[in-house]
């Protein structure tokens, strides 16, 4: 078994099956985080006093190491995929809330007034005006969340081989196959880069109205997001 992508027999899905599993385990939590973050962020925009305490809670939650989070959850959700995905969803939520709040707040007052004057109700104004204008900031947040999520799934290996590509690290160690470790590291990195690139393409697609210069600004906010 010395072909590049051959797997030890305890990994049933084959290499690309593991890659698909990794993608699912990393991105479902990001999606869940986004679904919760949208209403939470909207609440923070509506009620200004709520934002500083929410920001504090998110900072503290983000500081909790993933391994600590995983092992405490074992008691409740067992050695399962869910134990890995819940913390990842929390981290995504924590990254996305400030990104969305900043994005929605950056919509100029005149734009909102114009939308209201055109007869937009609050829901339609939110969906058709605020969200599209906030899209670059939201996608910048999604990039940070999904890349770190992809990297953290591997840690799930430590709690009963729930780490998808991370499981190959353990196999590589116990079978003395450096090839498997390389496959894990390179595979995870390539996955992260591809997802990141896909999100950049998505941003270009959903913001066709942005002039070149403004796109450049969007990139600097992405840099700021990367710095978080």
């Amino acid at each position: 078994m010395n072909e590049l992508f051959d797997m030890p027999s305890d990994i049933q899905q084959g290499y690309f099956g593991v890659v698909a599993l990794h993608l699912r385990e990393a991105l479902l939590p990001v999606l869940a985080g986004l679904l919760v973050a949208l209403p939470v962020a909207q609440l923070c925009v509506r009620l200004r006093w709520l934002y500083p305490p929410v920001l504090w809670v998110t900072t503290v939650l983000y500081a909790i190491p993933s391994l600590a989070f995983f092992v405490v959850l074992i008691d409740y959700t067992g050695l399962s995929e869910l134990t890995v995905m819940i913390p990842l969803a929390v981290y995504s939520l924590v990254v996305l809330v400030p990104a969305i709040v900043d994005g929605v707040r950056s919509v100029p007052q005149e734009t909102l007034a114009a939308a209201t004057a055109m007869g937009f109700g609050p829901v339609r104004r939110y969906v058709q005006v605020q969200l599209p204008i906030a899209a670059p900031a939201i996608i910048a947040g999604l990039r940070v969340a999904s890349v770190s999520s992809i990297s953290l799934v591997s840690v799930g290996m430590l709690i009963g081989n729930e780490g998808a590509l991370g499981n190959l690290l353990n196999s590589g160690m116990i079978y003395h196959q450096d090839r498997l470790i390389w496959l894990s590291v390179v595979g995870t990195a390539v996955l992260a880069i591809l997802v990141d690139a896909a999100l950049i393409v998505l941003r270009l697609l959903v913001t066709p109205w942005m002039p070149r210069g403004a796109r450049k600004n969007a990139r600097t906010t992405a840099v700021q997001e990367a710095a978080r």
Partner: protein
Amino acid sequence: MNVLNHIDAFFSDSAHWQGYDGIPTRVVEHIEYTLLALGIAAAVGLPIGLLTGHTGRGGNTLALVATAARALPSFGLMVLMFVLLGLGMAPVMIPLVVLAVPPILVTTYEAMRSVDPAPVDAARGMGMAEAGVLFRVELPVALPLILSGLRSAAIQIVSTATIAAYVSFGGIGRYIIDGLYQQNYEKVVGGATLVAGMALATLAVFWAIARLTVSPGVRRSS
């Protein structure tokens, strides 16, 4: 409440407080890893970030480097380095530094770029040398953001240094990894509590540093 009982049992057992596997030893090891990695990362990231931010050149390159470095899985990198380099400080330090440099570098750059240009021009107009502009005008104003970059780097190091126990190193991660192998859940949860406490302590330390070093005028305006 099960978890709380485990935590209580872990910390009240006096055997956990002594010897080479005692809490003080492991906490000190963890702090050593963290300070060393943060020191190296700051020595690399701060000067480059300050200079590029001051001159305003190379922002796109920095963003590219940071994005690429973020894509590297730190856990996988640690196992890979361990397999390639064996025992020693290098396999732990390389992934931790790779992890910590991007936030420091990019935040420092962004912090320097976001300084209000008016006081910088005024300083130049008054005949201040470039070094003076950098250290006496831009740096104090940019300090809160720079510290937040160092803070997120430190927190990521604290949480990733836990994983170093998997490849045979010390630190608080030992309790979690050993506890999992020994099916000693009390030890696992105790270790997790310690790491989480340490991450929160890091937040507190940086909050205190910011209180002490950021000038009151800057703090009030932000």
